[in-house]
């Protein structure tokens, strides 16, 4: 099993969710986050004062998938989250050791 974490542009969330559902991903967890990559921040001007905003708002999407779903899931996020402009985000993939469904106690791929 793999654990996929994608950092995406906030307005792309709906498309990413649809794309992941379409390839059979059963559930995702979404968090509003802030951070920076190559896009860096921007400056804001209030009356005379200028502030550099280092951290830009992004959305973090997390999903646990079966090994055989991984390629499709990555492709789905890549396509749906892309605008071609700087700041589209990144996808991180981790090995996932164990999954437990709390209600039934199922473990492993059946719990996904």
């Amino acid at each position: 099993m793999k654990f996929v974490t994608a950092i995406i542009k906030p307005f792309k969330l709906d498309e990413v969710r649809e794309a992941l559902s379409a390839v059979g991903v059963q559930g995702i967890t979404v968090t509003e986050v802030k951070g920076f990559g190559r896009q860096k921040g921007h400056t804001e001007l209030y009356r005379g004062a200028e502030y550099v905003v280092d951290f830009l708002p992004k959305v973090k999407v997390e999903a646990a998938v079966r090994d055989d779903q991984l390629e499709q899931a990555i492709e789905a996020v890549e396509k749906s989250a892309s605008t071609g402009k700087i700041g589209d985000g990144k996808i991180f993939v981790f090995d996932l050791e164990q999954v437990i469904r709390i209600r039934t106690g199922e473990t492993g791929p059946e719990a996904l």
Partner: protein
Amino acid sequence: MRKLFAALALLGAMVFGAPAWAQDAPAATAAPAMTAAAAAPAAAVPAATTPAPVPNKGDNAWLIVATAFVMLMSIPGLALFYGGLVRSKNMLSVLMQVFVTFSLISVLWVIYGYSLAFTEGNAFFGSFDKLFLEGVTPDSVAATFSKGVVVSEYIYVAFQGAFAAITCSLIVGAFAERIKFSAVLLFMVLWFTFAYTPIAHIVWYWAGPDGYVSAQAADKLNATAGFMFQKGALDFAGGTVVHINAAVAGLVGAYLVGKRTGLGNVAMAPHSLTFTMIGASLLWFGWFGFNAGSALEANGTAALAFLNTWIATACAALSWLVAEWIFKGKPSMLGAASGAVAGLVAITPACGFVGLMGAIVIGLLAGVLCLWGVNGLKRILGADDSLDVFGVHGVGGILGALLTGVFASPALGGTGIYDYVANKVADSYSITDQLLVQATGVGITVVWSAVVAVVAYKLVDILIGLRVPEEEEREGLDLTSHGESAYHY
């Protein structure tokens, strides 16, 4: 009958200078039979033969509504305007400081403030004659700017009280985000007592128009008025008394309380310009009561003040954001809101004296000049006036006070100065002379407010300390001073 007396006085008026009329008329003039004659200085002249004037219901109704307008512009208007400009961890502290200052001054006003400001005393202070509003009853009346026209004194007390309360609340913006709550309260008591009430007396107190029946009577009555009123300073709704007064106290506070911890290193961007926009809009709305209400009557002057308040504000919002667009690259919501407030401030002393074209010029200049006030001037001054109380209210107030002297001229579409002895607008109007008088008024207010503020802050510092500890400042005043937070994420 009274008109007859006044007409007889026409001749004397040619010899003596016209009594200028500044903003608010004061205390009871023709007191009803129930109240002591001593409380009615102006009643002495013709009242013996005329029945006591009865408040006009329309004027009374308008003043009641106008007073409520001024309360709305303070809370929540001013509180939200300021609140949106601070960081989210200090939101409640600013709302609280404005809310509680407003409440505190309201109480002090009826206990002794009104008496000190609006009873006859000397040229600088009133008396304690109406301590605890002694002698004021539902039948008591206060003079307006028209002979024989009065309003109920209770609503006059309330209207002026709302002014006192919002003036003190304005100061909060200058030392926001680091001052001790108890220090705010003690400072407000001191400054209100020794700066607000005397300046209000100096600029606005007079015995009312009814006694101005001859040049001699006028001279005698003028001698009982406030110092700047005697000089003929024009301040329709409080450019000096409210804005310059509060702005100077704020600037002194910004120096004496010191800069916010981390200024220049930590981002101190406004946390909600949405609230700031709502606040600015409520200020604009409430200012119709503030300015048009200052006519004290529901008449043409009130209508002029209303329209001027609308148009000058719109001009200033536009000029600020256009200047910002040109020099800073983008027109901002904060710029539009700040420009509107700058325009409101600048038109305040002028609104009942200048014509619409004067208002447009005042508004356009106010927007650009106050933008400089929060940028160039702020850097020169070097004080951390957190929410630019001086940059907007000080600069805008001084500009407005001076330009009132220019655009009140009938030659420039203004109303001129009304001569209560001749019962008509004075024939001559010297812009230079009036400018000089206006500048004197500005100077006295700046010096008076600054001196009182320095002493008051020093005293508070010695007694309870001005600032919260640095850790509390970093954590935010909402939690550390008030034990609650504005937002739950």
